[in-house]
């Protein structure tokens, strides 16, 4: 069986094309794929940044054609469009690619954490559809453990690179525990939504959303179990807040020293202004207990972290190399499986025949058949242990197949197979 991977990602295809390929539930496509004779197992991986099909196949050429047709036709893209955008990997390269994707080394934002969950979902979907099997099963389990190693043994995923995550990270340097702290989000756009999610994940439980049009605030607040308010309540809301995040289309600052001064209470106040033009008067940053960060401050930290993450990928790549080697070893060991199976079956046939013949002889009258069965099995297992272990080791080390061939000749496995076929 060969492993074949075809797909396109943010590196090879523009957003418009990836949008056309993005599919909600690829269950039927998965079933169609494995129904084809040339594809034994398949996993379809679809996110906003990539669309990939991994297949295990006995006939790679036919499977390649089938998968290209799948990408071109079945998913509704015009044929010819995709050729230049599709990349293809087989065996070792495909394994490496899957391991790198799961470890977030091939992501647009290197080290981002969602990709592992998405890979697990893709794999689970394939299992649910009956499209997965032992080879891809092993590959994906290996990919998950590699991703875990990369995450725990390297610093690739350590530094936050999104504005929302940087804001949360900064808040943790100011406040001992975000649980119990109160946040005020001014605005109701996408950035506010992303930040709200990040703040919630960080443990902040009291969140208020204030917006010029309260309906939008109500909608957003309902989705994140927050409370919605109008902008007229701003001074009162500021009084109760520890973290303030603003992103509102406003020509003038809405949080000014006067507003803050009126509502100041004891304790630090962390203000994040991601609005353009700015929503917070920069002079409030001069107040002792007020820590003000604007979009440029956060972006520069995020960009710097992103660059540091990229520099730290060398360690992660080394782990992927090591794990690719392990998987290749396992894959190579599979070559020995038919020979080992035949060897054991052959030995078992001989053993069973000899035991049966022996038990018919008068010398064995009164002997326990179970004891003889047990004894002969133990002898056969002990005799086979050394050659079987050696065959596995040789296969894993990917040396030439002479050891396997020698075993087949010495134990007359091909003769036995021919005899069985004749019978």
């Amino acid at each position: 069986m060969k492993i074949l991977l075809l797909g396109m990602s943010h590196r090879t295809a523009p957003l418009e094309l990836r949008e056309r390929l993005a599919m909600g539930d690829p269950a039927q496509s998965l079933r169609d794929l494995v129904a084809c004779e040339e594809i034994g197992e398949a996993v379809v991986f679809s996110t906003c940044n990539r669309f990939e099909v991994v297949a295990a196949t006995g006939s790679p050429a036919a499977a390649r054609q089938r998968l290209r047709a799948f990408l071109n036709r079945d998913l509704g893209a015009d044929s010819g469009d995709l050729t230049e955008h599709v990349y293809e990997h087989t065996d070792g390269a495909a394994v490496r690619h899957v391991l790198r994707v799961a470890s977030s080394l091939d992501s647009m934002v290197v080290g981002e954490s969602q990709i592992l969950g998405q890979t697990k979902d893709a794999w689970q979907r394939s299992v649910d559809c009956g499209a997965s099997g032992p080879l891809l099963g092993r590959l994906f389990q290996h990919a998950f453990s590699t991703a875990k190693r990369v995450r725990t043994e390297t610093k690739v995923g350590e530094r936050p690179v999104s504005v929302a995550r940087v804001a949360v990270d900064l808040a943790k340097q100011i406040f001992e525990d975000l649980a119990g702290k109160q946040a005020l989000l001014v605005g109701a756009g996408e950035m506010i939504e992303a930040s709200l999610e990040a703040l919630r994940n960080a443990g902040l439980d009291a969140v208020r959303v204030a917006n010029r049009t309260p309906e939008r605030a109500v909608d957003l607040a309902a989705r994140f179990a927050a409370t919605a308010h109008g902008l007229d309540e701003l001074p009162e809301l500021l009084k109760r807040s520890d973290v303030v995040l603003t992103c509102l289309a406003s020509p003038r600052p809405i949080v000014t020293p006067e507003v803050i001064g009126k509502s100041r209470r004891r304790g630090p106040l962390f203000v994040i202004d991601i609005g353009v033009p700015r929503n917070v008067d920069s002079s409030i940053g001069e107040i002792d207990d007020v820590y003000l960060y604007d979009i440029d401050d956060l972006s520069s930290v995020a960009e710097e972290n992103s660059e540091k993450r990229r520099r730290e990928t060398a360690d992660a790549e080394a782990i992927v190399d090591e794990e690719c080697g392990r998987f290749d070893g396992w894959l190579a060991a599979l070559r020995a499986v038919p020979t080992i199976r035949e060897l054991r079956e052959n030995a078992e046939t001989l053993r069973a025949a000899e035991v049966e013949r022996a038990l018919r002889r008068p010398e064995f009258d009164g002997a326990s058949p179970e004891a003889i069965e047990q004894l002969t099995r133990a002898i056969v297992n002990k005799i086979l242990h050394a050659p079987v272990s050696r065959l596995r080791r040789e296969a894993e080390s990917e040396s030439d197949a002479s050891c396997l061939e020698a075993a087949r000749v010495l134990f007359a496995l091909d003769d036995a197979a021919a005899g069985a076929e004749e019978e």
Partner: protein
Amino acid sequence: MSVQLHEWTAALYLLAGIAAWLGLALRSRQLERVSVLILGAGAVLNVAAFAMLHQLDPPPPLTDLPTAVSFTTCVGAVFFLILLGWSKLAGLTVLVAPVAFVSAFYAALEIPHAAAPVAEASAPWAHAHVMLASAGLACLGMSGMAGLLFLVEHRRIKAKRPLDFRFSLPSLEALDRVNRASVAVGFPLLTLGFVTGLLWVHAVYGTWIAGGRHEAWLALAWIVYAVLIGVRFALRQGARSAALSAVVAFGFLAFAVIGVGISS
């Protein structure tokens, strides 16, 4: 035996300091935890070393400077460990461990020390004074260290500088809490130390004021702390100015106790 224990205590504090700084530089949570564990072991040994001073013949009085330093270090380390259970402060070990090392090392070098005996009639007041004042000094020292780290972190966050050490250092809020708690515990102890000091002077000289420079500076230090407490708790002083006050006030107190104390 006590001398050896003091040496081992100093060695453990030194190790804790090295582990804490390495943890900070490498951003290693594990090293940070190791540093706290070593500091804890050092504190246990410190208690034993101080207790073993009574085995010396003759046992040094508490008024002896190395003995008082050993006691202060012991109280400071134990107080820090108590604070650790209350707040996320492991990163403060980078300051606490080196200071504890210097103090324990000094005690190890100087003990046994030829100390002037204390008059029997005034001994209880003398010992009470040293114990209370030393415990107060240790707590206020903790507030000074928390204040110092607060000022460094506050400056860094305000200046929006890269956040390389972000996982190891305590948050500003935690440092402010420690500062407040340490002053709240340390000031009453210092006050009691001051009162028992007066009683000691009275027992020895029959007057409340002996007129020494040490007394005058200590009285000034007490007034500084009294003002600091008033501003902090009654006038709702901000965290940064509270941190600055804690550093300055402790500097003043350290000068009054150690600087003037040694020279007079």
